[in-house]
C-alpha cells in the first residue's frame, strides 16, 4: 500500500567531479511502498544519484535520510545492511560462482552465516530452498548450476535481481533492470517487480517507457543534473519540457 510517509529523502544533494557538476541540488523523496521511477536523458545524472544514495559516492553537498536516519556519512555496506540495496547499470554478478551460489552469497548475510570460518560450508545448504525459489522467480531454474559468466547478458540481469531480492530489502534501487533483455523477459521482470513491490519500496532508473508507465506510481525526471519534473507518469509525460528534453516528439 502506498502511503504518504517518505522512506527515503534526499535534500539538495550535489555531486561535482573536478569542477563538473553532474548532479545539482536535487531533492528527492520516495514514498514508502511506492514504485518510483527516475528517468532522464543519458548523462542526466541518474546513476550518479544512485551512487550517492547508496554511498558509493559521497555527495559534495546535501543530506540523505533513510527511514528517518541520516545516512549521509555511512559506508556503502552499512547502507545495504539498513535494507537499502541496489543493482548496477552494468550487470554485476559473481562471475565464477554458479547461479545458485550467487544467490546464496546474498542469503548468507542476513542468516549470520558469513563470518564462521570454523564451520563447514555444508551448513549453507539449508539456504538452498530459498535460493532456488528466488532463481525460479526470475526464470533461471535451468541455469541454476551454471557459472554466472556463461549466462547471456539478459540472464545476468535477472540473476542480479534475484540476488538483490535475496536480502529481502526494505527498499530496492534498480539501475536499468531491463537493459539488454528480450521482450518476454521484460514482461516477466515487470511482473516480478510489481510482485516484490508489495511491502517494499522500489526506485528504478529505466529507459523503457512502457515499463515505466506500466509499473511506476511516480516519476521524477532528471535533466542535466537537475530535476525537471516530478509527478505521475501521465502528468510528467504531458509536460512539454519533458517531451522536448527526453521523450522526443514521436512518443505516444
Amino acid at each position, binding site marked *: 500500500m502506498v502511503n504518504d510517509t517518505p522512506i527515503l529523502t534526499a535534500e539538495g544533494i550535489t555531486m561535482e567531479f573536478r569542477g563538473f557538476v553532474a548532479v545539482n541540488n536535487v531533492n528527492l523523496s520516495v514514498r514508502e511502498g511506492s514504485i518510483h521511477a527516475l528517468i532522464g536523458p543519458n548523462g542526466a545524472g541518474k546513476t550518479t544519484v544512485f551512487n550517492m544514495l*547508496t554511498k*558509493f559516492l559521497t555527495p559534495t553537498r546535501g543530506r540523505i535520510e533513510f527511514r528517518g536516519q541520516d545516512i549521509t556519512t555511512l*559506508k*556503502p*555496506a*552499512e547502507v*545495504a*545492511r539498513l535494507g537499502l*540495496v*541496489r*543493482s*548496477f547499470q552494468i550487470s*554485476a*554478478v*559473481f*562471475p*565464477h*560462482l554458479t547461479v545458485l*551460489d550467487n544467490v*546464496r*552469497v*546474498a542469503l*548468507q*548475510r542476513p542468516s549470520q*552465516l*558469513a*563470518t*564462521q*570460518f*570454523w*564451520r*563447514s*560450508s555444508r*551448513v*549453507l545448504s539449508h539456504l538452498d530452498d530459498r535460493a532456488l525459489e528466488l532463481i525460479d522467480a526470475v526464470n533461471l531454474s535451468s541455469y541454476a548450476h551454471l557459472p554466472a559468466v556463461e549466462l547471456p547478458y539478459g540472464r545476468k540481469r535477472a540473476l542480479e535481481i534475484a*540476488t*538483490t531480492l535475496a*536480502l529481502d530489502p526494505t527498499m530496492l534501487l534498480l539501475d536499468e533492470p531491463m537493459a539488454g533483455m528480450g521482450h518476454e523477459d521484460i514482461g516477466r521482470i515487470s511482473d516480478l517487480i510489481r510482485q516484490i513491490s508489495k511491502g517494499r519500496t522500489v526506485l528504478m532508473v529505466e529507459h523503457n517507457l512502457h515499463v515505466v508507465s506500466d509499473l511506476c506510481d511516480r516519476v521524477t525526471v532528471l535533466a542535466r543534473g537537475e530535476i525537471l519534473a516530478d509527478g505521475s507518469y501521465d502528468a510528467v509525460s504531458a509536460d512539454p519540457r519533458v517531451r522536448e528534453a527526453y521523450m522526443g516528439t514521436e512518443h505516444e
Partner: protein
Amino acid sequence: MKAFAALALVGLLAAPFVFYPVLLMSMLCFALFACAFNLLIGYVGLLSFGHATFFGGAAYFTAHAVKVWGWDPLAGLLLGVLGAAALGLLVGFLAIRRQGIYFAMITLALGQMFAFICLQVPFTHGEDGIQGVPRGHLLGLIDLNDPIAMYYVTLAVFLFGFFAVWRIVNSPFGNILKAIRENERRAISLGYRVDRYKLGAFVMSAALAGLAGGTKAIVFQFATLTDVQWQMSGEVILMTLLGGIGTLIGPVVGAAFVIALQNYLASSDFPVTVLIGIIFVVCVLLFRRGIAGEVMELLKRRQSKQV
C-alpha cells in the same frame, strides 16, 4: 579422494624412515608457509609481497622466547603465532585498503621496513641471527632432539595448519571471500563489510605463516635475516605458483619441489638461481595451473572422457 588423503597420510607418517628427516621437516615448514600464503592469493586474490615478515618475524619471536627466556617450545610457537598475527593485523590494516598491484607494493614496502627493523634491533643479532636455539622438550615430555620425534611434531603442526586452511576455505566465511574476489563492489552492495573479511583472512594467513616460521626456528635451531627478506617472500610465491595457486595441495607440492631442488642443486655444478629462474618461466608459460592444478585438470578431463 579420501583414499588419496589416507595414502598421503600414510606416506607422511612413513617418510622419515625413507627420506632425510631434516629435509622433510624443512619441506613441511615451507609447505605450511606456502599454504598460508595461498590462502590470500588463491582465495582472496591478494598477492602479498611481504609474507616473509610473518614467517621470519615469528621465527625470531619463537627463537628468542625459547633460547633467551627458556620457554617451552610450544609456548614459544604460540608466541610466534601471536606475534605474526599482530604483525598481520598491523600490515593488513594498512594494506587491505588497496588492491592488486598496489596491495603487493604496500606489503613489499612494509616488509622492507620490518626487515630493516630486524637488522637494527639488538635481539635479532644482526646478520648472525639468533643461533643455537635449543629444541628442548615439548611440554616437558617429548625430547625434540630426537629427529624422529621432531619430525612427528612438525608433521602434526603442518597437518593442523593445512586443515585450518582447508576449513577456512570451505567455510561460510570462505564463501564470502570468494565472492569478494569475484566482484568486490557487488559484495559491498549486498552489505558485506569487505574490509573486515579481507583483514580477517590476512591475519589468519599471517598467523599460519607465523606457525610455519616458528616451527622452522625450532627445527633448524636458528632464526636469521634471510627469513625476513623480500627474497623469501619471492620464494613462497614461487612455491605456490609452481604447485598451483588456489588449489589446496598445490603449495605443498610446490614447496616440497623447491626445497628438494635447492638441496639437490646445491651440490651440482649447475647454478641454482638459473634453474629456479627457468622453472619459473616454464611454469608461467606452460603450466600456469601449477603442478597440482595441471594434474587435477588432467584427471578431470580423463573423467569427463570416460563418462
